[in-house]
């Protein structure tokens, strides 16, 4: 029974830091200031439907762009030599070692109306373009910050893909394109799903990116929740209700994604 006793600290950890907070959120979501049971927190949610929709759309766009960048990148990187791969991976990880806010502030100054980008464009006589405080800036911030979460799982799946499947496909008459379409891509789907989940979830719940790069123009779920706890509209009960709704949304999205994976949950988050 060694194994059982060894698991105790982890069970304890999960109880304290995962289960109890979750229960608290549920309790808050279904109570009012007096602590009495109520559903009224959910009555108001339709007011924020547009924020929900906006968040989902932006998160989806960011996820799609990440996928479009990450898949070809991972695919070709997996075919490179070990030194090149190590350097490339290091470069991908490097920005993550810097503070998240710092990186986003940097984007602010790049995208500003008088920022680096517009100065550069100005040299060529283009612009100035207005990017900061738009949805484009928010999506850009999401893609920049969360791209590594898409690359890592896809790369690791493609990299570990057993070469024998590729040889078997070639042996059966498949050229490079057919081999990719019929074997490599389907076999790399678990990595794609995992990457999609890992980009979609932080994208839909972010508030710093939308706040800094979106100004007040791009108001997302994360901002809404933050406002209920730290902002002007202090209402933790409503905040919990929105958080709970978002949890359900993410859960549903993940379940749908997993369905595409053909039940190969092993490599997918969830």
């Amino acid at each position, binding site marked *: 029974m060694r194994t059982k006793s060894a698991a105790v600290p982890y069970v304890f950890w999960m109880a304290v830091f995962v289960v109890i907070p979750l229960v608290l959120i549920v309790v808050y979501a279904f109570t009012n200031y007096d602590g009495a049971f109520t559903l009224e927190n959910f009555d108001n949610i339709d007011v924020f439907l547009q924020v929900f929709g906006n968040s989902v759309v932006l998160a989806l766009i960011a996820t799609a762009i990440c996928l479009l960048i990450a898949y070809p990148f991972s695919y070709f990187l997996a075919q490179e030599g070990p030194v090149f791969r190590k350097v490339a991976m290091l470069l991908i990880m490097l920005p993550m070692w810097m503070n998240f806010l710092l990186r986003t502030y940097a984007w602010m100054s790049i995208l500003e109306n008088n920022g680096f980008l517009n100065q550069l464009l100005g040299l060529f006589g283009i612009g100035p373009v207005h990017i900061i405080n738009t949805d484009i800036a928010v999506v850009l911030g999401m893609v920049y910050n969360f791209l590594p979460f898409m690359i890592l799982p896809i790369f690791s799946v493609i990299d570990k893909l057993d070469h024998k499947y590729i*040889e078997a496909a070639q042996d059966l008459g498949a050229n490079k394109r057919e081999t990719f379409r019929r074997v490599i891509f389907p076999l790399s789907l678990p990595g794609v799903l995992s990457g999609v989940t890992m980009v979609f979830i932080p994208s839909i719940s972010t508030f710093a990116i939308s706040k800094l790069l979106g100004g007040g123009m791009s108001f997302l779920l994360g901002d809404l929740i933050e406002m209920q706890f730290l902002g002007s509209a202090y209402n933790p009960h409503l905040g919990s209700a929105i958080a709970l709704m978002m949890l359900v949304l993410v859960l549903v999205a993940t379940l749908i994604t997993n369905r595409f994976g053909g039940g190969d949950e092993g490599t997918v988050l969830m």
Partner: protein
Amino acid sequence: MSKELIRLHDVCMAYDDELVLDNINLYINDSEFLTLLGPSGCGKTTTLRIIGGFTTPSSGDVTFDGERINDVPPHKRQINTVFQKYALFPHLDVFENIAFGLRIAKVGEKEIEERVNEMLEVVSLKGFGKRKVDQLSGGQQQRVAIARALVNRPKVLLLDEPLGALDLRLRKDMQNELKRIQQQMGITFIYVTHDQEEALTMSDTVVVMDKGRIQQIGSPEDIYNEPKNAFVADFIGESNILDGIMHTDFVVEIFNRKFRCLDKGFAPMEPVDVVIRPEDIEIMAPEKGRLQGTVTSVTFKGVHYDTIVDFKGYKWLIQTTDYHEVGSVIGIILNPDDIHIMKKSEYSGMFGDYSSYSAEYDEINDPDFDADEAEEDADDED
């Protein structure tokens, strides 16, 4: 046999400075069952990969039906492969795995269905089409791999140790099955194995390889009865290999005694290797035998006893159905056709001595043979 289909001409393969294949010359006939046999690292898998197009030889030519195919990629060759660990596509069911090649070839839906079902029948897996690959046993996966290759009606089927991961009983069944399929389809099989018994059972032609070189090519009977050197004699079956001197044609000297044999064409007094198969030796009462020895160990093997007999300090293995207890003195006689003479080779003196006999001499036939280990060795060749 019928006409020549594949030829390897002076094929060499080197990785960095290591010579993996050293001047391989080999031709393979249409509808032949040819086996590449040898220990791990002998170059047999590399030879197969060259024929399949997965590896390009460093030098030499590969021809198929008279045309040079060195640079033809695998997907353009009329050759299909059954891979060592099957390599069935995990994201497709049995039907789709088998249909894979036909879909690439854009065969019509109706014909695909017919041909896949026909193949499922050939490999005795009727009704398994909708199964997932990982729900199949090793033997069934094996059959799917064969069906997936054969459904494309290749001219040649390459099989890379396909039975290595199966247990002994299943392996025997599959050996018969493979032979039957080969005869039924009438196509060329090129089979790679390290299992000499498998090679002898199934093949029309056996190619014995070691250290990247072909040691001998011949029918199973030739290889067994007329091994060319000590390596072949030892690798195929059990052999007592002794130093001898060829006095004249048909007369060989062993242990300072002359024996009649059936071999000729050696120089007078040429030193040779003499092979005596353990099952050919006839045991007599000591006074009647040409040689006398003492039994030092007996192991019951089922069909026979492995009896180790000490002749003047040199230990022979004799397989006999009669029990002779340890310590007893026996005599033997050797008939001329029990003796096989080989020229001296680099392998002389390395094999055929049973002084360090242990009951596990037969590790190559061991049903518990570690397939992973074999694969690692095979990978080393790549």
